[in-house]
């Protein structure tokens, strides 16, 4: 029983990590109709930025904040200089963001090298919790807590604030938002920066969990795209449920069917797409 519980908590921790990155991806997709294939590299960058500042004797929490801010600033720069020119052009978006992912990944290799790095768990959370005869790292529970906190924050922003109403309106009808006196360009920049910041946050928190290595960006991007597709394009609530689903299934899959764990996740995605092409929480498109 305790093994089952430990696996479940591990699955939840990974699920929350997937949710944090997928939330940014799905919000950008929902509001801006942009599939950001460079999202995984922003995740990787988030981890490496924390690694750099911790190496410079900075506290993990300050490094985390710097990482989130820097990825947000990078998001603003990318949107203003590049992304804004490819709105409504799907193929160009894919090529641009895919190209950006290669460039950022190569910059990461150039600055930090290609060896696998480990990001230390912050001292405050470097402890374990006993569950029966199992020992469970406290840091993983912290990741679950942050994921739930983010979900609460997104719910509050979406349903209780004007910016949330604007974002929901943008998902509904982008053109009309501008016709109401709302600066759509500014909204898009803000949304992209927020999405990038979430990628940076998830990278910073994911570093101690999954390690840091070149290629982690592609792996996390594929997983987060699966999460977004299962949850429904543009729905962060859908991403929350599907991220937990993917995290738990993947974790149990690695224990029970080590060679098939990812295949099971893909099969679930295929089943969801056959039954509900718009995803679990996506809205039907006429």
């Amino acid at each position, binding site marked *: 029983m305790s093994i089952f519980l430990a696996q479940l908590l591990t699955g939840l921790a990974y699920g929350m990590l997937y949710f944090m990155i997928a939330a940014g991806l799905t919000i950008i997709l929902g509001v801006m109709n942009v599939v950001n294939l460079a999202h995984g590299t922003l995740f990787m960058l988030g981890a490496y930025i924390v690694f750099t500042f911790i190496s410079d004797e900075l506290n993990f929490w300050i490094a985390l904040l710097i990482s989130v801010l820097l990825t947000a600033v990078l998001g603003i720069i990318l949107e203003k200089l590049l992304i804004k020119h490819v709105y409504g052009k799907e193929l160009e978006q894919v090529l641009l963001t895919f190209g950006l992912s290669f460039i950022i990944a190569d910059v990461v290799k150039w600055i930090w090298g290609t060896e696998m790095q480990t990001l230390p768990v912050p001292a405050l959370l470097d402890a374990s919790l006993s569950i029966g005869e199992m020992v469970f790292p406290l840091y993983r529970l912290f990741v679950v807590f942050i994921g739930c906190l983010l979900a609460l924050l997104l719910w509050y922003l979406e349903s209780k604030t004007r910016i949330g*109403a*604007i974002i*929901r309106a943008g998902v*509904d*009808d982008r053109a009309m938002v501008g016709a*109401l*006196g*709302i600066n759509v360009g500014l909204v898009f920049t803000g949304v992209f920066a927020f999405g990038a910041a979430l990628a940076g946050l998830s990278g910073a928190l994911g570093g101690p969990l999954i390690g840091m290595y070149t290629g982690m960006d592609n792996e996390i991007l594929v997983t987060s795209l699966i999460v977004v597709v299962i949850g429904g394009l543009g729905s962060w609530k859908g991403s929350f449920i599907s991220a937990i689903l993917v995290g738990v299934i993947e974790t149990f899959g690695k224990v029970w069917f080590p060679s098939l764990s990812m295949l099971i996740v893909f099969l679930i995605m295929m089943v969801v797409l056959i039954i509900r092409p718009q995803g679990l929480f996506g809205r039907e498109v006429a």
Partner: protein
Amino acid sequence: MLYVQGLSTHIGKIQILHSIDLHVHQGEIVSIIGANGAGKSTLLNTLAGLYFPSTGKVTLEGEVISGLPAHKVVRKGLSLVPEGRQIFSNLTVKENLLLGMYSRYYKEKNQAKDHIEMILDMFPSLKKHIDNLGGNLSGGEQQMLAIGRGLMSKPKIILLDEPSMGLAPKIVNEILEILMRIKKEMGTMIILVEQNVKAALKVADRVYVMEQGNIALHGTPEEISMNPQVKSAYLGIKMTS
């Protein structure tokens, strides 16, 4: 007063509007009629800043608004109620209305409630749906919400694109009466684009007839309705020689 002088608009390489001249006086309803593809919606979208004009000038109360992006045009006092209503279906009626006053929100945050009350007085059928999603309203209620949302920014001029489209005659009459009330009580200038020519003539002070991106005719509803071309093309009255 709204002045439009020599307004031309291209969409891509195709010229849609050809040197349009029109004006709207304070507290006046101006109807624009014309066949499908005459450029009526393009004209409204250009005035609203959704398309940029290639030539010409638009002034509202002496201020040049042509060439400004849509969000700045709204702040200058022009509001668009687009074709097909385009209300936000996953927002409540109240949220839709509040987004309508976005351009004035920070100045008049405390009056938001009063603004909404004023709109609900004008559209009583929206009152009972205030917390319902916009997508759950009937076509007529959605049109009323779209007009109400357009009025939330307290515009100097409101542009309505085909408000009668797809609505029952009874609802169309209700909407026309509301437009008369808006003109009378708020003094708002109104440009009404309609394919329902009888409805357009019924409420208008002046009428412009558009054909292939040009203003073909201009006059009072009486003058326009007596015009032989209008009679045969739009009012279905066959002319006998």
